[in-house]
């Protein structure tokens, strides 16, 4: 969004914010982009793993953890069993009984709500930063939480400091929200 941040205040904030329609549209596109992948992944996995289980279940068939044969992977990709340590895998984890714990009523709606809140917060933070710049009159560019935090060390009086803290909090919250998604 750095290109957006270089624009004049009102235009910048208009572009940073996302209308509900924009978010809905983007969500629709993202879902259409993503949904076929796990759909295909599930069907492929069901078919191939079922075949594998049938094969492994036959008496005298392959041993568990057998080395991969040469035809399936290039020789350079052959596993070296000496390097394999007993790492935990999915086989060690018990399944949850019943439904997923705390799934939320509608995970997709909750996700979209998070995005709306973050975007609104970003716009509010940018507005605060613009106000602060206007009060300072120095045209300083504040484009990050770090910039906003640094502004606090300058004493421009109680009212301006309150603005700085507000902007700083907005950026910090936004930063934390993004970290949570990583």
């Amino acid at each position, binding site marked *: 969004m750095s290109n957006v941040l270089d624009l004049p205040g009102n235009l910048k904030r208009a572009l940073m914010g996302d209308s509900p329609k924009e978010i809905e549209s983007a969500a629709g596109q993202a879902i259409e982009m993503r949904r076929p992948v796990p759909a295909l*992944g599930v069907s492929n996995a069901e078919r191939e793993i079922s075949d594998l289980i049938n094969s492994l279940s036959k008496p005298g068939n392959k041993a568990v953890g057998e080395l991969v044969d040469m035809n399936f992977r290039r020789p350079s990709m052959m596993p070296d069993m000496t390097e394999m340590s007993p790492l935990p895998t999915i*086989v060690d984890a018990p399944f949850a009984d019943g439904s997923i714990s705390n799934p939320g009523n509608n995970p997709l709606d909750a996700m979209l709500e998070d995005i709306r809140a973050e975007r609104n917060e970003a716009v509010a933070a940018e507005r605060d930063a613009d106000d602060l710049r206007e009060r300072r009159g120095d045209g300083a560019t504040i484009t990050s939480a770090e910039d906003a935090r640094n502004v606090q060390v300058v004493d421009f009086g109680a009212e301006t400091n309150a603005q700085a803290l507000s902007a700083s909090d907005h950026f910090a919250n936004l930063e934390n929200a993004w970290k949570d*998604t990583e």
Partner: protein
Amino acid sequence: MTSLFDTITRKKQQDLVLDMHKRLIQKEAELGGRLFPIDNEDILRREFFCLDENTWVWHEEVRDENGDKHIYNTRYEVGPGRVLKSTNGQGQQSLGLQEAEHLLKAVRLYRERVLKQLYPNHDW
């Protein structure tokens, strides 16, 4: 002629779509991890998700007896009649019967409890 405003608006919308796409995968991984309850305080995090049409990922973060954190990323690559497993980029290993059964169950639960919840308007 395309204006700067149109260009930026389109770029912003593309960024938003990509952001949501990334979040969808993260949400799948999170919900997939909840198929397996964290019943031990030394297990810090679990994720399970479909990376692409042939790859499934099992991610686990655990703490050992010394309090050190370990992260294990296991990829299951589904091929014709077999599944290869590699953990943290180490050598690939074919899947044994027990793990294959467990993975198949996880995949089916993923469809029932993750995909149907996250994308309710589609036929799974």
